[in-house]
């Protein structure tokens, strides 16, 4: 089984978000970048397939040279090879087109991506890859088993879960549940050393026009101060008379 894990390189969850160039660009200054949390759950599940079922695991990112440390981290966690498609990630569509090319070239059986990236929160790249490559797609995936040519996937739905059977090739939009928080791996020294010599291929992008373009960013307006109630009675009255939510 050949697995591709799509890795989005995103600001660490504790980052303060700022913009530059007249609020048209994200300000990288002082921001730590990490593997998108949803992708880390997927990568860890892929390691399970590697160890238990002999899968070969590749990771891919669409981005500039600055994303390579993130790909090296994925290699240190245990991926076999990495691919960087050398293009600044603009909209979800143009990213999906690049990844779909990678998938078609190497005929992956399983593509594991995240439900959404925590930067642009598009939640569109995995579904688009599936549709562009003619694979099945399961979103908000919280459990995945593969047996021969057939996968059983569990998907989170509003208020519960649903179990699906699908033939490969399959693309998933994964999240926590694929593995638990405690299963996540911190790269060890041996992994880090090995990662240095594992292949990191750089691929030039195919042409794909962005379908959407960000014109301007805005930060939310600062909110007013909290109103502290001195009694539970007062709180109930505030919620009823002032906030009108009960």
């Amino acid at each position, binding site marked *: 089984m050949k697995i591709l894990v799509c890795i989005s390189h995103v600001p660490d*969850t504790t980052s303060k*978000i700022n913009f530059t160039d007249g609020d048209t660009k994200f300000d990288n200054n002082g921001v730590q970048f990490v593997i998108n*949390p*949803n992708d880390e759950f997927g990568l860890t599940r892929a390691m399970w397939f590697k160890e238990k079922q002999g899968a070969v695991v590749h990771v891919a990112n669409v981005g500039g040279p600055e994303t390579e440390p993130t790909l090296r981290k994925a290699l240190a966690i245990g991926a076999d090879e990495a691919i960087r498609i050398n293009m600044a990630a603009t*909209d*979800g*569509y143009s990213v999906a087109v690049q990844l779909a090319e990678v998938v078609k070239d190497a005929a992956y059986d399983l593509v594991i991506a995240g439900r959404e990236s*925590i930067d642009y*929160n*598009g*939640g*569109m*790249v995995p*579904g*688009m890859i*599936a*549709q*562009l490559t003619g694979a*099945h*797609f399961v*979103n*908000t995936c919280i459990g995945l088993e593969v047996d021969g040519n057939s996968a059983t996937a569990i998907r*989170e*739905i*509003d*208020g519960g*879960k*649903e*179990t*699906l*059977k*699908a*033939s490969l090739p399959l693309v998933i939009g994964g999240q*926590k549940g694929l593995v*638990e*928080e*405690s299963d996540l791996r911190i790269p060890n020294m041996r992994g880090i050393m090995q990662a240095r010599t594992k292949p990191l291929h750089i691929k030039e992008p195919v042409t794909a026009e962005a*379908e*959407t*373009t*960000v*014109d*301007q*960013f*805005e*930060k*939310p307006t600062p909110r007013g101060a*909290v*109103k*502290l*109630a001195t009694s*539970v*009675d007062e*709180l*109930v009255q505030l*919620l*009823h008379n002032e*906030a009108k*939510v*009960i």
Partner: protein
Amino acid sequence: MSVLVFTESEEGKFKKIAQEVVSYAKGVADQLGTTVTAVSINGEHNEELGKFGASKVLMVSDDSLTNFNAEAYAEIIQQAAIKENAQVVILSSGANSKFLAPLLAIELKAGYIPNVTHLPVSSTPFKVRHTVFSNKAYAISEFNTPIKIIGLAKNAFGVKENNVTAAVERFQIEITANGMEVVSVDKATDKVTIADAEIVVSAGRGMKGPENWGMIEELAKVLGAATACSKPVSDMGWRPHSEHVGQTGKPVASNLYIAIGISGAIQHLAGINSSKVKVVINNDPEAPFFKAADYGIVGDAFTVVPELVEKLKEFKSQNA
């Protein structure tokens, strides 16, 4: 030309987000000088969508579509968009809409922008305002495609009455089996879900242990609310993962969010920013959550919550 909107239903009943997307679609149609057509898959009482602004409903009834099927649903909406010559397609932020949106975008060669919070900023060029960076910022983005798909953020626009008369038309397309099937659905029917809830009662590590959740559930019950929790609470197995809210969990866009014994870490706040009114109950006046809240009580949850339950019961009986 028209504005097409997909209206999610469950067991025939339209969800509140369906009413919200139709209300929004009517606003967009007014801007563009056109009308709204809704696509309903196994929805009942379709004419009621007129109340929110749909002039036409394309009604699909098909027993093989009782379980959600993203590929088939996307195909139906695609066909409807072609039939109606739709320039704008509007979807909700419900799990099913988010699932099918990218498939539909590829089929229609349409740009897709999710988490849209306002009516379009302009129609030529077509620009919308949406949240990015887990609600830590907004972006104004422009579509470069002839067909545009908007994913409306939950509870951002609200339900508006428009009183249009809806013509209901049968819409049947051939669905072919596609090598993917639902094996089982496991769903609590008696609980309010975080996705649908108007009010969410959420608790954190300040509750000390899972055995203390009785009062949280009771509070949720008086309020008709869904229960939620912080990440460590679900990681420790005190509560199910499905209740974890935040940047790496579920987003909450309710009218009222009550946070009990939650410190207010940046990752937690990112997930609940789009809730309208936030109330914090915490015994530490320095807890960061107070800076992000509208109302608060500094106090011990173990005394405040039971008292709140009592007062709310009294309040409900007086205002019933």
